[in-house]
């Protein structure tokens, strides 16, 4: 009798408990979605519109001249695109060309797709410029221009590295004191190395593809017309053989990881030291 009574009571409460359970799940999913959305929003950093100084008069020849550039507001990825993120894109692709290169000789990087599970938070490497661009388009975004990249790294000041002018172990370079010898670090491993705008890993770890073609004299002729007013939203030369890479990598000396250093590679190449981050034009608000 007692048992019957207890069961009956439990059965009577069941509809309520089911409702409560579904309500809980619903609320939990809502919270999770909000967290994910918030995280996604946080992962893009708004760089406000304005003028900044690009290039350098004292470093490499192709960084000359130092000149003013005006950029509209834009978003840039707080981190480089990770293995886990690229994996989501890759599994939907029918084009085998979008498969990242394998690095069997570098077990600390490894083969694709195993490395997506093994190192989900490492920046994706072994992708060509075309792969990076395709991913960006898939995400409804684009690659940053060279100017956008530099502004996000150096801010309004003339910082040699994103954190300032002193050589510090705040980036994954070929140095022995950064904690990541001969290997890639997970994104965001160097919080002290963040830029003025809070963008992470803009020095070292992996080079980053930018949207622009490389020209050693682009700054010179693009800024000639800008002698009186800053160049507005430059997008690089119209033609070229190489795409510009920025930021330096785990195999580079820190001097090559400066905010102004320009590197270039053939866009088809897939190497273990090149990745990318995303950018997006900010919508103009009308008052």
């Amino acid at each position, binding site marked *: 009798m007692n048992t019957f009574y207890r069961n009956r009571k439990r059965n009577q409460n069941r509809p309520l408990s089911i409702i409560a359970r579904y309500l809980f799940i619903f609320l939990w999913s809502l919270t999770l979605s909000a967290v994910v959305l918030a995280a996604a929003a946080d992962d893009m950093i708004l760089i406000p519109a304005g003028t900044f100084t690009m290039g350098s008069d004292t470093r490499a020849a192709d960084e000359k001249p130092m000149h003013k550039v005006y950029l509209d507001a834009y978003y840039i990825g707080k981190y480089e695109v990770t293995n886990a993120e690229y994996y989501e894109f890759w599994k939907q692709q029918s084009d085998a060309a979008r498969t990242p290169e*394998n690095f069997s000789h570098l077990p600390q990087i490894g083969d694709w797709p195993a490395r997506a599970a093994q190192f989900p938070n490492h920046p994706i490497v072994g992708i060509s410029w075309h792969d990076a661009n395709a991913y960006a388009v898939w995400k409804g975004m684009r690659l940053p221009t060279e100017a956008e990249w530099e502004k996000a790294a150096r801010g309004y000041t003339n910082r040699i590295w994103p954190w300032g002018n002193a050589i510090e172990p705040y980036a994954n370079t070929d140095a022995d004191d950064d904690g990541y010898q001969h290997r890639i670090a997970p994104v965001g491993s160097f919080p002290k190395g963040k830029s003025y705008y809070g963008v992470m890993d803009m020095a070292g770890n992996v080079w980053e593809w930018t949207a622009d073609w490389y020209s050693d004299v682009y700054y010179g002729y693009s800024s000639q017309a800008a002698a009186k007013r800053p160049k507005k939203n430059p997008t690089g030369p119209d033609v070229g053989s*190489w795409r510009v890479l920025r930021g330096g990598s785990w*195999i580079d000396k820190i001097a*090559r990881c400066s905010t102004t250093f320009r590197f270039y590679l053939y866009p088809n190449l897939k190497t*273990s030291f090149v990745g990318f981050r995303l950018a997006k034009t900010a919508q103009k608000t009308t008052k």
Partner: protein
Amino acid sequence: MRNLFTIAIALWLCVSFFSVAEENRGDHSRHVQHVEQGFVFMFQGSNQKAISEFEAALALEPDHAEVLHYLGMAYAQQQFWNQAAENYQRSLALMPNNIEALYSLGVVYFKLDKWEDAVPVLEQVVELSPQHARGYEVLGKSLVKLRRYAEAVPILTKALALKPNAAGTYYELGMARLNLKEYTAAIENFKQALTFGPARYAEPHYGLGMAYLRLGEREKSRTEMQIYQQLQKEFAEYERLTRLTRAEPNNLEAWTGLATMLMNRKNYGQAVQAFQKCIEFAPNDATFHHGLSRAFMNLNYPKHAAQAAKRAIQLRPNQAILYNTLGSVYAMQGDPKNALVAFQKAVQLDGEQPYYHLNLSKLYQSLGNPKLAQEHYRAYEHFLSEQKAKPK
């Protein structure tokens, strides 16, 4: 029995197929490894090793236009021009109209004195990429070599429009105009070459000497020719020291001379290496640490410069100039407090050196102390005039 035979054949085929596939995969993996290693060596400046790696990569997968271009570039770095040309040509066969590979080939033809061959290749570069300053530059130089001066002038002018501070291009333009008997314009170009050129740039002085001579200005011509000869002599000495340090890497005297010369030529990156070499042989010589500090300072590495200056002071604590250098480094780092202490110490040790007073004056000015700034500026002027009055 027949079934068993069929199964065995099928199995054998499967095994062969997978082992071939595995082998191909292994080859590709090794190709990737060699390419990656090639890049690393190239970045480190070890071009000979880069060449071996790229060649090994191409032995496994020969049809890589990009890798062939990089191999050519590594050969060019080693000044193996013929091998460079061969690889550029192979790259271009796979990827015709590649601007940078065409440019590289044009440069190699120029280096091999094949100016006739360089011209059409470089013309193709500037046609494909109308903003290719380097393309115009080497095309113009090739035309000068071919004595096609009138054609060279607009090409070099275009190069300068794209790359306005290119000293070498001004020099070539000056030479073209000199040969076109446009002496006044040539003089202007040689002067621009000197303005934008590296320290101790000799050739424009020769051009100026020739242009003045043709204009009948003999005195000016002689002066320029004397400077040219003096700089040529210096350059010969620089080359001798460079060769000597290669042949006798333990020769401290040669390293010392080279380090000093590199500082004079404002080649601070190499000066750092030369001073480090000197320190390796004579770690307790303050002069080398001081030189290293100044080289780092000019390279805008204040932290390293301060380290070296402090080490020099440890070794020779009573040498005023070391404190002056340390003060300059602190000032550069935006640390006026320590800069002041260092500059004051320099003046305390040697109060008659005008530039120590000048540094103190500038610092006081920036610290908002005009009275002391003025006082030290007066001291600077006083000791400077005294120094000038002293017989040399």
